[in-house]
């Protein structure tokens, strides 16, 4: 039996962080859109320091999300930001752009670094390569299947993180796709009109009327999200047996009440497994609790866990 994995949850505010802590989350991913991608809400550096205090007092960890593709312009601010994160005492920093790695080495060498290149973290050798550059964890691509994830665990020289629940990003552009479309239509966009997360915008592809793909804009451009929510709960024991170090529940674009229930359920499943792995059995009531609050228009699916992709 391996060690108990961490249950990681992105939080959008201190209120959410407190609530998710109460539900049994072990670690939090927080930050602000300027530096991190697709966060459920923004934390100022002062709030990050506060979050660290709250979490550490209860034995939980806080990771800062700094996984944007960085522009030249942002490089300078990034130096100060990394110093602030180090001073706040965060337990790690998630990065995708090598610039963050370079800057961390210069100004905050004590920070642990988690490599998250989203769709492109797809094999153990590349993960180990980033390990040799200073990363202590790889966030695996959500497009990997269960076989790929489990077979790479023994080869990994660094920790692994796998998303077990929630939606995923499937397209990211620097362009303002929603605003551009509205401008093309000649639609007048009100001064305070939002095309951000809170607006609830979604796309339907002509031949897939049942699938709704959330879309929103922020300072990093346009993000399109999956039409289904990953839910590996039923087969969680397979990941637990494979020794994955961190399991992430994605909370973005979900009400807090939904996330609380999901976190509690996964907490219970993980604890049940580690109480006695041999006797562990999946409890239908767990997933039923999630179904009760699941948006009926979003399928709970195994994502790519059991898919074979072609190319």
């Amino acid at each position: 039996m391996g060690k108990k994995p961490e249950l990681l949850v992105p939080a959008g505010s201190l209120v959410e962080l407190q609530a998710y802590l109460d539900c049994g989350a072990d670690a939090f991913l927080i930050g602000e859109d300027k530096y991190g991608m697709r966060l459920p809400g923004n934390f100022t550096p002062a709030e990050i320091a506060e979050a660290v205090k709250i979490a550490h007092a209860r034995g939980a960890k806080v990771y800062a999300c700094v996984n944007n593709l960085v522009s030249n312009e942002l490089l300078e601010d990034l130096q100060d930001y990394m110093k602030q994160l180090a001073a706040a005492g965060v337990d790690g920093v998630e990065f995708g752009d090598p610039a963050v790695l370079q800057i961390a080495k210069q100004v905050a060498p004590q920070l642990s670094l988690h490599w998250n290149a989203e769709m492109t973290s797809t094999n153990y050798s590349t993960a180990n390569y980033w390990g040799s550059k200073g990363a202590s964890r790889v966030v695996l691509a959500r497009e990997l299947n269960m076989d790929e994830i489990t077979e790479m665990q023994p080869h990994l020289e660094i920790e692994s993180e796998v998303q077990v629940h929630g939606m995923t990003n499937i397209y990211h552009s620097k362009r303002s796709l929603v605003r551009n479309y509205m401008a093309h239509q000649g639609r007048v966009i009100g001064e305070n009109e939002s095309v951000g997360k809170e607006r609830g915008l979604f796309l339907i592809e002509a031949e897939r009327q049942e699938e709704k793909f959330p879309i929103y804009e922020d300072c990093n451009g346009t993000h399109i999200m999956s039409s289904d929510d990953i839910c590996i709960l039923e087969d969680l024991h397979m990941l637990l047996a494979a020794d994955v170090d961190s399991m992430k529940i994605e909370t973005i674009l979900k009400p807090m009440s939904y996330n609380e229930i999901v976190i509690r359920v996964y907490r219970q499943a993980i604890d049940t497994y580690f109480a006695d792995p041999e006797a562990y059995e999946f409890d239908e009531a767990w997933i039923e609790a999630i179904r009760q609050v699941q948006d009926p228009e979003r399928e709970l699916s195994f994502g790519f866990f059991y898919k074979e992709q072609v190319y």
Partner: protein
Amino acid sequence: MQTAGKHIRKYTGKRYRLEKPELLAPAGNLEKLKFAVHYGADAVYIGGQKYGLRSGADNFSLEEMREGVEFAKKYGAKVFVATNIYAHNEDLAGIEAYLRDLHSVGIAAIIVADPIIIDTARRVVPELEVHLSTQQSTVNWQAVQFWKEEGLPRVVLGRETSLEEIEEIKQHVDVEIEAFIHGAMCSSYSGRCVLSNHFTDRDSNRGGCCQSCRWKYDLFEDARPAEAWISEEEARDNSVLRQFQLGVNQLPLFNEEDNSFTMGSKDLCMIEHIPDLIDVGVDSFKIEGRMKSIHYVATVVNVYRQAIDAYMADPDNYVLKQEWLEEIQKAANRPVNTGFFYDVPDHEDHIYEPEEKAMPYDFAGLVMEYDQATGIAVIQQRNHFKPGQEIEFFGPKGTFFKQTVGKIWDEQGNELDAARHPLQRIKMKVDHPVSYFDMMRKKK
């Protein structure tokens, strides 16, 4: 040309570099390689049988690569191989042997996205140059510096980089910068799109992209209150909430007559801005399109070759020639723009309207021989043509003339009413001297 309009804004950076940039062209197969090189490419990039991102292209066997390298060498041109997938576990075995093979057939450089392929190449074949692929979406100088320290002499920047940013990068890091200057574009950050995986189970980052970004979508606003997020069972007992299940509060953000939403981008075309690109220090001008035709490759390479040469020969008296714009248009697949070089693309930079038919011209024949005494050329048929049709001949360095097809004969001297058979050798009189590799095109 549509590259103009709002984007016309002279880049004002100072000129500090006068080395001639490389013109880098795509070559989907051996024949395209030969045309690209003959029409003036300094280097071509191709795909091998493995690890490339165009699984739909012909791609080169090692033997074909060897032949391509030999051919290019005669022109002083180089051959690069795109090994730009993001590898999965199962792809790892075999990389070393493949890279050794590439080196052994004389490939000058590989274009790589996945660091494990970079690392393997540096270790196994250190003499093989490694260029960082645009798939890494590198858009800042610090990241460029990182890759330089990893031993890479060249970085292909993310297409989101502006001219000003390129200049900053060049000022901070002594490294070759390659930039796409012409062709189709991902509208996403390259590598950051798995629409294809979600819609069709085809892995975009291993060459399976099915271009879902160019499909048609409808945009809606979800106006259901949060309480509507209840289970179907609950909804059955509650008629008020039931309506939300049926999508009643999901508002279409389009009218019947509106074009659909799309992410599809216009194509990139920088022919009107060659001086700006040279002045900021772009070292390699890359044309997209390993899947494109010979006609496309030859036409586009030909034009950029002339523009680059003209500017480098006399920067102060450089003039953009109208004929270059006309030529480029003949190989255009879509409306064009200037990408991110001057500004972030806006609503005029997508293709919302139904796409018009591609390229107005067909490649009709290839000149094989020319007899100066008689003015008769032997043309290899590449598409149907017949006497009376208006045609154009063009060759490297911008040679160009129009004529009407006169009498045509097969090689035995039998007069033909039309050239119908693919690759048939057809004789015809041409109005001006032509030579091997010159191309004949006709309007569709």
